[in-house]
């Protein structure tokens, strides 16, 4: 079987990412103490962080808090606290972890989190987002604004869809001016949109580097770790610098042929969020087969930049609206996700698809059986279906999961060897 490879990314950008995120948490702590800068709660998918730049406001992302807790193995306590309050076993564990933290005063780094000036729910497909922020508004007493982003129910958003979102965004601006007492700085907003465009271009180039064999990074585990600055620093110069450094580091690896493993054996596409409480364990299960992810759908929750879309500072409001409408995985319809995955499998040359069903998230998971049917029966792509949860540590069966992963790669191994023998013969 395979030798024991390093399942750790070898390089400096993960540390840089950690530093940036810690810096963000420190600024949040400062905001909690002084009220400056004003904080705005938002959802990651389809977020309009550029708008906040127009007020010098700092984003607060409950999802990031939730996943940070899970990675540090601290999510169970707040989940249980929320369940004691009345939240159901079947409610999304991200929400429960976040609410539980509010109840118990827990934060991922131990620093304080500010009360938001505005709870801004960018509703992009995920109905749970709306419930979550309604509850956050009740518990914090902060004002709530739900930006209703029409679901992408045809190939492209209609003009009516775009107009609707732009109008609402402008209303958010008006509301923020009242709440912060600050005038909206349109130039800063426009500059933020310009920075976003640069960041997106760099991130897209990074994603495309995984087309190389060997891939210089894992487009699931490493991409998810690198995502944080994509929503916290997207509209800022620091974001541009970070992603430029990341791209340089990865391009260097490609130049010398350095992959994630010494011998890359399998290339896979991964669909679905990771089991954050078992991030390392899960990664090791793939590492033991020298299997690298060359693309993933979850790493596009913060925005889908691989296929050419960029923010446009010439029409900032419209392009922010377009991103919220059409360029994040949650507001795109299920068949568009199939198409996204199909492109990944074909253009990034993957051997198979891993579908990770998570109990908490019906947006991702409801219908994955049909996705599996499409890929195995219609496209003939070897597909593995595994189940756990993204936040709740009680729903991960390690032995069973490993068993399924092993069985899948055993069968892929056999196909590869048969193909190799056929070539030799």
């Amino acid at each position: 079987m395979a030798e024991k490879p390093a399942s750790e990314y070898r390089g400096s950008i993960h540390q840089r990412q950690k530093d940036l995120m810690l810096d963000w948490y420190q600024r949040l702590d400062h905001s909690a103490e002084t009220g400056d800068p004003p904080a705005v709660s938002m959802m990651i998918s389809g977020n309009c962080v550029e708008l906040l730049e127009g007020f010098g406001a700092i984003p607060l992302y409950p999802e990031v808090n939730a996943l940070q807790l899970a990675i540090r193995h601290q999510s169970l306590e707040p989940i249980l606290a929320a369940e004691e309050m009345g939240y159901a076993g079947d409610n999304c564990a991200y929400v429960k972890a976040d609410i539980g933290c509010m109840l118990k005063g827990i934060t991922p780094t131990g620093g304080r989190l500010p009360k938001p000036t505005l709870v801004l729910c960018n509703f992009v497909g995920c109905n749970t987002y709306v419930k979550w922020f309604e509850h956050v508004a009740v518990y914090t007493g902060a004002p709530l604004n739900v930006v209703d982003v029409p679901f992408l129910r045809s190939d492209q958003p209609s003009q009516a869809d775009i107009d609707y979102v732009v109008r609402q965004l402008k209303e958010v601006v008006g509301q923020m001016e009242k709440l912060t007492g600050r005038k909206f700085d349109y130039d800063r907003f426009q500059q933020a949109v310009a920075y976003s465009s640069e960041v997106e271009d760099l991130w897209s180039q990074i994603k495309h580097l995984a087309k190389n064999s060997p891939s210089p990074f894992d487009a699931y585990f490493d991409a998810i770790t690198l995502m944080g600055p994509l929503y916290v620093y997207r509209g800022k110069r620091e974001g541009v610098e970070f992603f430029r450094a990341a791209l340089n580091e990865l391009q260097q690896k490609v130049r010398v042929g350095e992959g994630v493993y010494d011998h890359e054996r399998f290339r896979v596409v991964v669909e679905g969020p990771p089991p954050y409480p078992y991030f390392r364990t899960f990664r090791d299960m793939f590492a033991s087969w020298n299997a690298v992810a060359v693309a993933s759908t979850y790493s596009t929750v913060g925005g889908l930049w691989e296929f050419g879309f960029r923010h446009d500072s010439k029409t900032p409001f419209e392009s922010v609206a377009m991103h919220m409408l059409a360029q994040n995985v949650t507001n795109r319809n299920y068949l568009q996700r199939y198409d996204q995955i199909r492109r990944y499998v074909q253009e990034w040359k993957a051997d198979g698809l891993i579908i990770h069903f998570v109990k908490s998230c019906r947006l991702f998971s409801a219908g994955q059986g049909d996705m599996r049917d499409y890929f195995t029966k219609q496209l003939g792509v070897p597909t593995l279906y595994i189940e756990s949860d993204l936040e709740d540590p009680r729903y991960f069966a390690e032995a069973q999961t490993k068993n399924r992963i092993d069985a899948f790669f055993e069968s892929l191994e056999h196909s590869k060897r048969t193909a190799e023998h056929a070539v030799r013969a």
Partner: protein
Amino acid sequence: MEQFERTFDSLYEGLQDLSFVGVRKWKEQHPGAKSVAFFPVYAPMELVHAAGMLPVLLSGAGDRLDIQHADSRFGSFICSIIKTTMEMAMTGHLEPFDGLLFSSICDSARNLCFVVKRNFPQMYVDFLHLPHSTSESSVDFLTEEYRRIITELERLGGSPIQPATLRQSIALYNIQRRLVRQLYELRAQSPHLLRAWESYVLIRSGNLMPVEEHIDILKQALERIPARPGKKRDAIRVVIEGSFCEQPPLELIRLLENAGCDIVEDDLTIAQRWFTEDVPLTGDPVRALAESYVHRSVYSSVRHDFFKPRWEGLAEKVRNTRAEAVIFLIAKFCEPAYFDFVLFKKKIDELGLPHLLLEFEEKLFTFDRLRTEVETFVESLVFD
């Protein structure tokens, strides 16, 4: 009168039918005409009606269909109505329908729309984005969204929808809604004259038949009911909350009543009572429908609130019907209902009212456990 009494049972039989006999009959009587079905909760039936088509409201397959195929597409932790609807599609039960419309009620249902679309490319399958925004721009948006649906319906083969025709359809559905409201008022006032299961089959049966027929049934019922013999009984006045989409088995509703509850308000048939007043018949009717959705509609767990929180709406329901308790009747795995439960419960606790949380599935064959829970609850209130 005897014949009237049999109405409820025969309407219930009609609800059991998965072959959509009424729809097929209607299509035979109107050769070439189309039928469009809606997945819960709210549906702008008037648009379909005005196109000369038959609008139908689906509500899953209850316990009448074994899930043998849909399980492979929708796995665990998904509510039953998603699977029974998919199963109906996969076993040809939805064959009488030319179109299927879904809307933004929850994440699972939204994905269901597109899974159905992929597997049944010959059907017109569409997703209606009903707004969640308190902004006035939502009326403009929904007006355009309704116009989009109208274009699709016309393309599907409906007759072009003229404003006058649409106004007529709206007028008809206004009547239906008014009659449904009257039924609810009657039941809340005199629960001994109209059981909840009876009003349920009366209203729900309208899902599967032309609205004109349903109006006749409702009118007749409203005439006959006050003259029914019925003894008042000592029961607890209860509001049911949480069953807006997947439906509890009828046996469960009867069980609640038999255990000593008078169900004076519920959200079981919320789609048929969506507007609090008539939709205006003046001006642009498409806009009138959109504007009513934003300004003249009831609260629901499937969307964000427009002008006041849902829990205030629940409190109002309790006050208006002088209810003594709330039963949260929630379908297993129903995420919106379970989220709302937390803040609804908080409000009911503030009002000092007792409440009970009951979980159900469409498909239940034994009710012993549920019966025990409800009877215990009622006993705890009666023997205080």
